[in-house]
């Protein structure tokens, strides 16, 4: 695995994540970006329009965050949205009626809902495919295909898509490529380096990291896309507020420290679960038996902090959920506190059972997002809950 050295910038990630340009306020020397809680900005003259005129169109605090994520993802321009879904729905607004898009079949449930209950009515057509099967992706191409949407590792079974392979193919067919990079964060995976056009985040997760802000981020690879996304962000107005922008930056400063710690815990947890007699299956790209391990290592610098596992039955899963003491039993993931989710009744509750089973999400599947607690405590807690 490569280190965290950037191709086109000499600073290492751990340094960049602190020294991103907002660590010192230029005007006062303050050690944190000020909150510009203003909606509107005075024009000092009619000739020179100011940098900022109205906060929906641009705000100094939000701008700092947008520059920050663009730097971390090695992109051209960043955008901050009211939620991950607001970021994703904005990216799809680049398309028009009559366009077709190829999407990974185990895409996040909210993205699935957006495509199948809103964008379908706007005549955006979607084909869902298993993106680990390149032939399926190729087979989905149509004359009106305009974009490919990837999510890797996928949720909750952590299937791996070969970003480079699909992106190269997509480029040959003039398709826009988008990656939801929520699970990996730019610390572990930077899709723009692999040729992707747009990277999307639910920053509510690892980037924010504290379960205290709902936010979305997008980073684009070209100026042209930057101009278009800017128009969409301003036109649709689904921006991130000033205070939330500030909170998110505060969280992002510890991204690497948190990811390193949680990943170490996740590796240990995945191994421990693999040896536990009551566990039928463990999903984690760092495990030797994970089918996507090799591809994942080619495109990422780490395995992330999410481990999914199968306890055999719904009864077992429910028993375990009622007995665990450390993790928050809740939806969401990617926080300082560990979060244990039950996809069958939470994130994937809306999916018909047969479809869910087909996707490998059984009644016994659980998803553990490892936080910053001591991993031995987490394991002990699971041990007592699994009796």
């Amino acid at each position, binding site marked *: 695995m490569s280190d965290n050295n950037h191709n086109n910038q000499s600073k290492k990630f751990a340094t960049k994540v602190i020294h991103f340009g907002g660590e010192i306020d230029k005007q006062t020397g303050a050690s944190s970006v000020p909150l510009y809680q203003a909606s509107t900005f005075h024009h000092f003259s009619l000739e020179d329009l100011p940098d900022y005129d109205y906060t*929906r169109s641009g705000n100094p605090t939000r701008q700092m965050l947008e520059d920050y994520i663009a730097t971390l993802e090695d992109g051209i321009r960043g955008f901050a*949205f*009211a939620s991950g879904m607001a970021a994703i729905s904005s990216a799809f607004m680049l398309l028009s*009626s009559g366009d077709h898009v190829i999407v990974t079949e185990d895409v996040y449930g909210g993205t699935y809902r957006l495509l199948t209950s809103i964008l379908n009515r706007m005549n955006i057509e979607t084909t869902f495919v298993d993106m680990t099967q390149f032939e399926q992706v190729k087979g989905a191409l149509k004359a009106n295909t305009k974009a490919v949407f990837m999510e890797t590792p996928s949720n909750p079974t952590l299937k791996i898509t070969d970003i480079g392979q699909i992106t190269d193919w997509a480029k040959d067919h003039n398709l826009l490529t988008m990656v939801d990079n929520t699970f990996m964060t730019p610390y572990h995976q930077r899709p723009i380096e692999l040729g992707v056009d747009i990277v999307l985040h639910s920053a509510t997760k690892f980037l924010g990291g504290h379960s205290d802000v709902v936010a979305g981020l997008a980073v684009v690879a070209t100026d042209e896309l930057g101009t278009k996304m800017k128009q969409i962000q*301003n036109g*649709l107005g*689904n921006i991130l507020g000033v205070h939330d922008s500030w*909170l998110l930056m505060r969280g992002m400063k510890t991204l690497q420290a948190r990811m390193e710690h949680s990943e170490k815990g996740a590796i240990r947890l995945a191994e421990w679960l693999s040896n536990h007699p009551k566990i039928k299956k463990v999903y984690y790209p760092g495990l030797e038996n994970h089918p996507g391990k090799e591809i994942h290592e080619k495109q990422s610098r780490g395995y992330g902090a999410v481990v999914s596992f199968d306890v055999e039955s719904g009864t077992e899963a429910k028993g375990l959920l009622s007995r665990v003491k450390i993790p928050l039993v809740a939806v969401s993931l990617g926080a300082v506190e560990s979060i244990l989710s039950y996809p069958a009744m939470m994130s994937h509750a809306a999916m018909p059972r047969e479809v869910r089973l087909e996707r490998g999400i059984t009644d016994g599947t659980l998803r553990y997002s490892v936080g910053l607690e001591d991993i031995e405590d987490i394991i002990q807690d699971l041990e007592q809950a699994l009796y």
Partner: protein
Amino acid sequence: MRIESRLAQIGSQADPKTGAVNYPIYHATAFRHPKLGESTGFDYARTKSPTRTILEDAIAELESGDAGFACSSGMAALQTIFALFSQGDHLIVSLDLYGGTYRLLEQTMSRFGVISSYVDTNDIEEMEKLITPNTKAILIETPTNPLMMVTDLEKVSRWAKTKNLLTIVDNTLLSPYFQRPIELGADIIIHSASKYLGGHNDVIAGLIVTKGEELSEKMFELHNSIGAILGPQDCWLLMRGMKTLALRMERHQENATKIAEYLLEHPMVDEVFYPALPSHPGHEVQNKQSSGNTGIFSFKMKDARTIEPILRHIKIIAFAESLGGVESLMTYPSVQTHADIPKEIREKVGVDDRLLRYSVGIEHVEDLITDLSQAFEKARIELEGR
């Protein structure tokens, strides 16, 4: 309770745990499930979040609707509402329209096959001609921004019902303190709460209010799926602003009326557009359907060349976009808010290069008149040389 009391008490009796007279800011994104299959009513903050719920319930109640939805901006609220429609649907829309709404309809919704016709929404005969089997809704701004055209909401919503159209009203300029369109038959209200509801030029926010269970459920789904929600800090700030809405609106109206009357008499001013003036064509309808007037109005200078020096010389009044805050702001619509509307359409409604829009703040009215009068005088001297 009367509206003043309801406004002052938003969220102040909602925290039984501590009795805090201001509702706490819940930053949490996820909520622990007490037991599997059980929920506190809150699961994930995008879907529903405690601080936002207080705000959403408050605006629903103030507007006499059934459900409220807080969005990250007025445009986000409009975008969420427009997602009700599908490819092939047609909308009838106020001709004199906020520029951002026009842009959203023409640059985005049209690409998704939702088509709009722009018309004077008071002109039912004209609207009859535009209706097609695919027409789904009418979107009304009243008074319009910047030309202050007034639509008779009761008459038009009644007509819309007979045609099975949803009536959507942008109530930004009057706020529920002065006007409650749902009581007059509207189905959906939208606010740029960045304006009077927030009132301090410090928060960007949008609000939606729906009437009826089915519409409210649909909007709930769209709000959650599109995800353009308002964060908890901004929800709190907005409620803080709304507590003084009644006081501010009264003062805005009083100041604006006095200044409009002053400008009407000024030799450099050609026309003043403000429904509070008896000479305004919408004066009567405005008085019938609203209990007061907004704090913004527009006026036309006789000579376009006076605009640049006036904007340069105003001292108390800031030259900035936006409206509805405690501080006075002056906008030049043809280059700022309405720059994206094609020149022909803009000029058809009268937004030309002689037009200024003034969002009157709650400063002392004499100071504002003094500021205007000195800026006018300096502009005159620059042009005439004496």
